[in-house]
């Protein structure tokens, strides 16, 4: 008899997802899907709101990468008033560095939350450990000292965000053309040197290194399992600077293939020429792809694995992360890495990279002095803006238009988790075939393997459900055998 296996809800991710796997009478996988089961939507209801509200409203899409949404919106607003990259204007050093500081602080806290609270439990206890144990409660019971360090690391990342944006979550610092406050020396020193109950930046780097070591220890013990878990080839995408190195805040979009050769590179203001999106009936999340290559070949991977595959190096300002990146690149002989569980390695490296970037910035006097805002004057108004940043989960895009009175008339968002939709579904299929295919007896642990594959992307399904609207209301009345007795549509 054919069977349908369901994971509902997928847990230890942000937002709402569900997995269905169809097995035929010979236990072959005939279908495997990740469904996004939530539909909220922001693009439509921001219409008519003042343009400067957009970063405040739209960061409420997400409780974990709100800074990325806030800054993406801020960059689009810079364009709208004629103070942005679209008008050829470079952001002033003080506001750009403050935005970067907050952004790196968020990457540190977001990756720390995902890696330690959501992913590490499997690395320590195994995929088929008791479900009650594979979580932060199990970590506290097994290694409370580790959890204390994780709490301290996450807290420090959140304090960086609060120092820049005024609140730990959904802050308000960015304004069109800049930011509304500098740091003072006391705020800066607190993050640099720490205080009772708060780490110093050097301690943060130590804790970040521990995260990387944790992956290596796990990898050494389970090398074959980790490397063969799910290999999903795809194009890799990231923002890069002029040297072709990842820049989390600004750059050009670069897309590389399995040989890490560039297949496309463009200014993100031209995104509509390059990206297309498909819709399936079984998920509220759309499927973007590179228009020139079509839906199959043009599927993109974004986020930590995509970025480390794209970047050439981390430059010379993050030596510890650079050493780890070289080890990562060497592991696959310079080719793109498509081993899905290595995403967690990449994530741990990026925690370290963020910490080193923050240390460098905290020593920069521009955080404490210098003009905060570009005021280009009314004549410079363009009424349209696009912002792109590398959010923790990958390349994030906001695009707005506003009328002459400043009311928003159009908003379009393409979020990182949505970019990963096709490769996440390929991963679900690959893991389902490896762990469920051909087996008559299925256990909870085998099903968890599918979730492990999804968690590697750290998907934010809250982010992915920003699009909104109404289902045509359809009511179906079925009898006990599932026969349709009556159907109404309005």
């Amino acid at each position: 008899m054919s069977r349908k296996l369901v994971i509902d809800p997928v847990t230890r991710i942000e937002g709402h997802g569900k997995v269905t796997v169809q097995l035929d009478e010979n236990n072959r996988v005939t279908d495997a899907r990740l469904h996004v089961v939530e539909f909220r939507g922001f693009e439509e209801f921001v219409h008519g709101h003042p343009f400067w509200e957009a970063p405040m409203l739209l960061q409420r899409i997400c409780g974990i990468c709100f800074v990325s949404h806030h800054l993406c919106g801020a960059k689009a607003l810079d364009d709208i008033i004629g103070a942005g990259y679209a008008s050829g204007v470079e952001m002033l050093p003080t506001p750009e560095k403050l935005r970067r500081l907050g952004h790196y602080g968020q990457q540190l806290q977001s990756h720390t939350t995902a890696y330690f609270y959501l992913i590490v439990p499997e690395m320590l206890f195994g995929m088929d450990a008791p479900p009650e144990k594979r979580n932060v409660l199990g970590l506290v019971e097994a290694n409370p000292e580790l959890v204390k360090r994780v709490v301290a690391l996450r807290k420090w990342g959140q304090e960086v965000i609060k120092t820049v944006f005024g609140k730990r979550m959904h802050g308000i610092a960015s304004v069109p053309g800049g930011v509304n406050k500098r740091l003072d020396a006391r705020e800066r020193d607190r993050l640099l040197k720490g205080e009772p109950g708060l780490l110093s930046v050097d301690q943060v780097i130590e804790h970040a290194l521990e995260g990387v070591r944790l992956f290596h220890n796990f990898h050494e013990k389970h090398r074959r399992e980790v490397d063969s878990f799910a290999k999903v080839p795809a194009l890799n995408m990231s923002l890069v600077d002029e040297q072709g190195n990842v820049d989390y805040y600004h750059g050009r979009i670069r897309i590389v293939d399995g040989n890490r050769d560039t297949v496309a590179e463009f200014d993100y203001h031209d995104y509509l020429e390059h990206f297309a999106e498909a819709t399936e009936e079984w998920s509220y999340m759309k499927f973007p792809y590179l228009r020139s290559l079509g839906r199959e070949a043009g599927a993109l991977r974004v986020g930590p694995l995509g970025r480390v595959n794209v970047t050439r190096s981390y430059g010379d300002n993050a030596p510890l992360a650079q050493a780890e990146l070289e080890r990562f690149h060497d592991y696959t002989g310079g080719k793109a890495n498509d081993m899905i569980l290595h995403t967690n390695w990449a994530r741990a490296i990026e925690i370290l990279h963020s910490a080193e970037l923050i240390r460098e910035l905290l020593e920069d006097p521009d955080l404490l002095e210098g003009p905060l805002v570009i005021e280009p004057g009314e004549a410079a108004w363009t009424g349209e803006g696009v912002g792109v940043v590398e959010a923790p989960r990958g390349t994030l895009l906001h695009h707005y238009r506003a009328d002459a009175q400043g009311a928003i008339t159009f908003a379009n968002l393409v979020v990182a988790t949505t970019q990963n939709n096709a490769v996440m579904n390929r991963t679900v299929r690959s893991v389902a075939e490896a762990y469920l295919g051909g087996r008559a007896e299925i256990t909870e642990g085998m099903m968890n393997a599918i979730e492990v594959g999804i968690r590697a992307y750290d998907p934010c399904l809250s982010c992915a459900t920003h699009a909104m609207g109404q289902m045509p209301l359809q009511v179906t009345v079925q009898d006990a055998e599932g026969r349709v007795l009556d159907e109404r549509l309005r």
Partner: protein
Amino acid sequence: MKPKNPREIASHELPATPLDAATRAAREEKIQVAMIALCGCWGCTLSFLDMDENLLRLLEKVNITRSSLTDIKRIPHRCAIGFVEGGVANDENIETLEHFRENCDILISVGACAVWGGVPAMRNMVPLEDCFREAYLEVPTTEPRAPKRIPWHPDIPIITDRVYPCHEVVKMDYFIPGCPPDGEAIFKVLDDLVNGREVDLPTQINRYD
């Protein structure tokens, strides 16, 4: 409740490795808490982690059963406290919230979305049919030749006409405002409840933004 397809097997009903007896017993002695994020941004759940060191203090007294931070997919036994983030935006949210009401002694609306619908409830102001068209049909990134589709499938929930605050669906016992509430405020309410004190949220840690 939606009719259950008899051929559908949920992962949480499959045989799982059992938790060892000693750990199980230690957890059963604690106060049982269930958590859920409905239509929100997961920010209130992260604000729960923002209680920092107090999280470890709280976990000495509290066991978390179902939550998006654990892999427990349904409330396994009676819980003293249910922590609810997010408003109600689809039929599954209704089902889940009712499951929480039936299985928890006390339910707390945590954050603006649970308390009054929050930012997602801004969609209540917009003609919904237009929005759906805007989201899936009239998007600049849609290929002109691609089939025009609005998601509609038995495996995904039906979106409700409006976004509702939790207390319009079931009785809620406590409300913590804020977008999100600070970790300190969440800790104060839970700590009061866990220690049998009357809930008292001082104005200096209560916020609405």
